[in-house]
């Protein structure tokens, strides 16, 4: 008979209408600025630079190797390598980025920079509310804005950060042991030091994900 389907539909919408005032679980809306859903661990949006220790300037893991800059598909990373070297977190002199800019209006969140970084220096952030009234300068993040502590990394991606830390510690212990072994018999030749520095690259990429 004509119209029975319409009546069924009307009953359904009426039920939704009244029950949405009674039962709270029907309303799935999250009142965004006040309420936020807990972050999913696999969430990611834009890259940030990890530093060890307390000071972002001193503890930056990035050694300005520029691999991420070359690999970045939309070319949103700009790096200027330093002329001098500074001691890194473990005290070894390293180059550092004199400038490290990411234009997040260009970034496509592909995570390729993270995949290629041999030093675990660049990771994906989860902060998404980055509104600005200046769409050019406000979305161009410099190295100071990009730097976030290893503790922050642990906070947003605990599993991944622990895996990275384990790998890094193992790597550093191996390097220290090799250095000690090299130092014990005879004074290390400059060539050997360079070789050990070049072998530092890095962990097992698979487990950091």
């Amino acid at each position, binding site marked *: *008979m*004509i119209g029975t389907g*319409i009546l069924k*539909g*009307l009953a*359904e*919408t*009426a039920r*939704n*209408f009244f029950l*949405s*005032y009674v039962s709270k679980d*029907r*309303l*799935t*809306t999250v*009142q965004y600025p006040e309420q936020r859903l807990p972050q999913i661990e696999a969430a990611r949006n834009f890259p940030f630079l990890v530093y060890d220790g307390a000071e972002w300037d001193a503890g930056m893991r990035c050694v300005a190797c520029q691999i991420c800059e070359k690999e970045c598909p939309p070319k949103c990373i700009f790096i200027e390598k330093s002329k001098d070297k500074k001691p890194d977190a473990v005290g070894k002199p390293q180059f550092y980025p004199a400038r490290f800019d990411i234009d997040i209006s260009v970034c496509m969140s592909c995570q390729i920079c993270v995949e290629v970084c041999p030093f675990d220096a660049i990771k994906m952030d989860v902060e998404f509310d980055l509104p600005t009234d200046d769409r050019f300068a406000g979305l161009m993040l410099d190295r100071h804005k990009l730097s976030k502590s290893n503790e922050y990394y642990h906070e947003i991606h605990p599993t991944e950060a622990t895996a990275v830390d384990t790998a890094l510690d193992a790597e550093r212990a191996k390097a220290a042991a090799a250095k000690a072994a090299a130092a014990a018999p005879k004074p290390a030749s400059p060539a050997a030091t360079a070789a050990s520095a070049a072998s530092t690259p890095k962990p097992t990429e698979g487990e950091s994900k």
Partner: protein
Amino acid sequence: MIVAAVNAGSVDQVFVLAKHALLARTPDALQPLASAIISIIPLLVVFPSLFAITTVLERKGLGRMQNRLGPNRVGPFGLLQPAADGIKALIKEDVVPAAADQLVHFFAPVIFVAAAFVAYAVLPIGRNMVIVNLNAGVLFFFAVGSVVELSVFMAGWSSRSKYSLLGAMRAIAQMISYEVPLVLASVPAIMQAGSLSTVDIVNAQAGYTGIWPHWYLFTPWGIVGFGLFLIAATAESNRSPFDLPEGESEIIAGYFIEYSGFKFALFFLAEYLGMFATSALGITLFLGGWSAPLGISLFTVVPSYIWFFAKLLGFICFFIWIRGTLPRLRMDQLMGFAWKFILPMALLNIFVTGLWRFLPASPLNSIRWIVCAAVLAAPCVVLSMSLKQKKKLLIRTYHFAE
């Protein structure tokens, strides 16, 4: 308009008395003009406010039907949302296409709104509360309503955009198709009242038998006529499920796609005003206009205009409910429904009204009821059965693809 039955102490007549008091203070020469202005100004205030209330009601109601919250940011419970929308519409850029016919493009929304307002002139919104009691009021209403089609085509044509022109063609095809059943569905009420004047039609329904009102809804032809009127009114005011001319999800806004800012808001205003006006005509023709639904003193002391607006709000809520429920029709379904189902039923309904009129009422009212209901129900069932699509849906095979 001035009726002897004005009860001086009654709240019901407070607006009528206020108008007379104001008119008494104006010089004689200015009285016709003053009378018109005093009648029109409340109309220009009340119905756009009702439009504002309806937009927020609609958005909240639809939200709840979809288990959402709806607008809740501006003001308490989001009730000031229409104000925010209005300010937004006013400060937006008014884009006019370079190739558009500037004059016609400008006048289309203006004429649309004006035509929507003029229709209110003949609608009695309370006892003795009608701007002009034309003796061809219903005819006037439909005549003015057809101006809407003109302004729709002005909007579509003057934009000089193929999309808006196509949208206008669709809108006009729909509006004309449904104008016919709309008029035919209201003919029975006119036949029964014996008058085209809206005031006379309401007065004919204002009595009570016991506590039951003499509304035309409570007759077999009244139920059918009201249903057909409701469907045709939904289509005429481009409401869901007949909102093909401006289906938001497919063709953005149809004929007014090239409008922005406040002109766009004017189209919206006019659509809603048109919906209110057709609803008000439905109330006038079938639901007894401003008369109370039961003849008991508790109901009849309530002022007539409150009953009118309560019924109008009922209509609005029903339209929102329908919009939240039904999916949009296809163009061929829309046309087929108008010409193959609604039109024959409306014509049959006119015949049944004549039958009702000439069958004896006093001894055998129930027999008259049954005869008329049967004459209406049988073709309705037959038509709805025969119009059901018997097409079998099969998996499509591509003979030449392999």
